């Protein structure tokens, strides 16, 4: 009996929380993230785990609901006693839930949620980290792409009435103002709206030459379909949600050409990315990864956590946080090479030079400008802190 106890104590797994919406409107992102994480955990466990201990994921579906996210946070912290949590797709859920982790001094790696406020919610010592491109980065990229790179002069913004849409719209307006451009129209719609005639006619009437979007899949599809109906076609450039399967599939031909910032595109332009894409396809029996960005960011977040635990030589939350903020080993991920990605003051692993523009082509997201990833730009690395 005592021998048995001793061996189980030795091989006691490291419990890591994994939370996101695995059902519901943002499920394609949540499920891809989860599958990316599981892929990484499988590889690590097969190679012997972390410090000889296996990783045990505790998966919970937050259904994109704030109140469920809060319950899960309490369960993972108090009952499951996880050493860290990976996940969050929805900014609202992240903001509502991570307070509990902060108080319990357990690190959170946000691997998909983009709300700018997420990493700034708490003062140092801050336990909240991110491996996604925040909205400040994305809105600046969208403005730059539309105005500087493509030379549009009269942008119209179409954003949904949620926090995601309206905060994104504010960020976009600020970025455009910074470039000396004023929007010709800023239109709003609700989740579930099916007719975009009024919004599109206002944009058209105002002489818009490009439509910038901050919304999610189904309504973005209604915008593209509405433009086709009115026989008015201007380019759509918007936040990364234009890569959602619910946009691409529901807009069909009308969604072709839409552009959005992406930290990861399913092209396999480096050996590491190729292996990742192939193992994802093999493990989950899909050709098109539902949300490649979420899958890749989820995958990388596990390796960042592994590096931090190994450096800390401990699963103590405070020590993992300190290790993340001062990571000595380079982590070779599929999104980028993480070379000191965080510091005590900077909890954003993705800097504005990392994402590139993707474009919808043939029902998939491909690289918009091939020269963005040509040669040594294939792996874009964050400048030194």
């Amino acid at each position, binding site marked *: 009996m005592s021998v048995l106890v001793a061996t189980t104590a030795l091989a006691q797994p490291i419990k890591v929380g994994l939370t996101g919406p695995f*059902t*519901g*409107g943002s*499920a*394609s992102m949540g499920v891809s993230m989860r599958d990316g994480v599981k892929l990484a955990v499988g590889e690590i466990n097969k190679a012997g785990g972390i410090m000889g201990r296996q990783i045990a994921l505790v998966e919970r579906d937050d259904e994109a609901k704030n109140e469920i996210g809060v319950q899960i946070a309490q369960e993972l912290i108090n009952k499951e006693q996880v050493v860290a949590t990976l996940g969050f797709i929805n900014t609202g859920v992240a903001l509502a839930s991570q307070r509990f982790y902060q108080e319990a001094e357990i690190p959170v790696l946000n691997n998909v949620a983009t709300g700018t406020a997420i990493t700034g919610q708490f003062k140092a010592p801050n336990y909240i980290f991110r491996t996604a491109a925040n909205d400040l980065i994305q809105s600046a990229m969208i403005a730059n792409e539309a105005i500087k790179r493509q030379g549009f002069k009269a942008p119209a913004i179409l954003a949904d*009435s949620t926090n995601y849409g309206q905060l994104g719209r504010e960020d976009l307006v600020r970025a455009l103002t910074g470039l000396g451009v004023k929007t010709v129209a800023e*239109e*709003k*719609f*609700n*989740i*579930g709206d*099916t*007719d975009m*005639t*009024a*919004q599109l*006619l*206002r944009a058209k*009437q105002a002489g818009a030459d490009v439509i910038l979007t901050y919304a999610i*899949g*189904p309504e973005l*599809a*209604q915008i593209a379909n509405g433009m*086709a*109906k*009115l*026989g008015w076609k201007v380019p759509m450039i918007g936040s990364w949600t234009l890569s959602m*399967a*619910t946009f691409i*599939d*529901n807009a*069909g031909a009308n969604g072709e050409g839409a552009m959005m910032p992406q930290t990861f595109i399913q092209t396999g332009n480096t050996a590491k990315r190729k292996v990742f894409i192939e193992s994802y396809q093999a493990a989950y029996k899909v050709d098109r990864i539902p949300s490649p960005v979420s899958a890749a960011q989820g995958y990388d977040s596990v390796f960042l956590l592994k590096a931090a635990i190994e450096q800390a030589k401990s699963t103590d939350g405070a020590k993992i946080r300190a290790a993340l903020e001062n990571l000595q080993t380079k982590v070779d991920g599929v999104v980028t090479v993480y070379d000191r990605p965080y510091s005590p003051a900077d909890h954003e692993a993705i800097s504005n030079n990392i994402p590139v523009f993707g474009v919808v082509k043939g029902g998939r997201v491909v690289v918009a400008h091939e020269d963005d990833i040509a040669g040594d730009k294939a792996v874009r690395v964050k400048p030194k802190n």
Partner: protein
Amino acid sequence: MTSEYSMQVLAQLLVSGIAVGMIYGVIAFGYQLTFATSKTLNFGQGEALMLGSLVGLSVVTITGYWIMLPIVLAFGMIQGAVVERLGVRQAIKTKSEAGWIMATIALGIIFKNLAENIWGRDALKFPSPLPEAPLSFMGVNVLPMEVVIVFGALAMMLLVEVFNRRSIYGKAVVATANDRDAAGLMGINTSLVITFSYALSSMTAAFAGVLVAPVTLTGASMGGALGLKAFAVAIIGGLSSGMGVVVGGLILGITETLTGYYLSTGYKDVPGLVLLLLVLSLKPSGLFGSATIKKV
């Protein structure tokens, strides 16, 4: 802008408003059907629409569009009868004032959860039986499917009205609607008539579901927003008039698109709700409704 251009914009807005309004109207028509016979409503009407459309989506891949229609209609009738048996009959029997409200809402939630488990929660594309390229009349564009929605909805409502007025079964429905007790005394099985009206109501909702889905997308959550809008339409138009819900739907649809364009897209829903409040305070039975006095 030339005045010709602004006329064209107005016409475009009206056309889109009519298409949206008919979607609301055809759903609201279902509320009216059950209210007429039993003075009760199916608050899960939006969910009946959603179920019809998702069942249609599953069937259409096997059978094609036209054979799918009668299957969906039959499904709608069964679903409506189930709602009446489980949720409404007992409440009518015991003359409960609120029982059927809670029961139909509860059934609606159950149907929604069921659909989420079967079809997931993503918005899904419904194949359009017609080309998706717009038709253009003098600079006003309309999708072929939108034309079908408007005429399909009108045709269906007309058929139901003709059925009610001409056939012996329909006359039983009308008799029950006019005076349930008297109809019962004349030998009409009024509880069967009420079951039938629920079946008919869900059938129209299921039909509306497959009709609008190619334009609105489908999915487990489609019933919520549309069902609520349709409820507003039923209040504005009047629950006792089939004509009223059509006009009510058009009023709401057109107001939404016009407000969105001429005022602000952020306030698109406000005038419709103001109208709802006005109607409730000035003519509670609806614009086309006849005042009914419920004797207690």
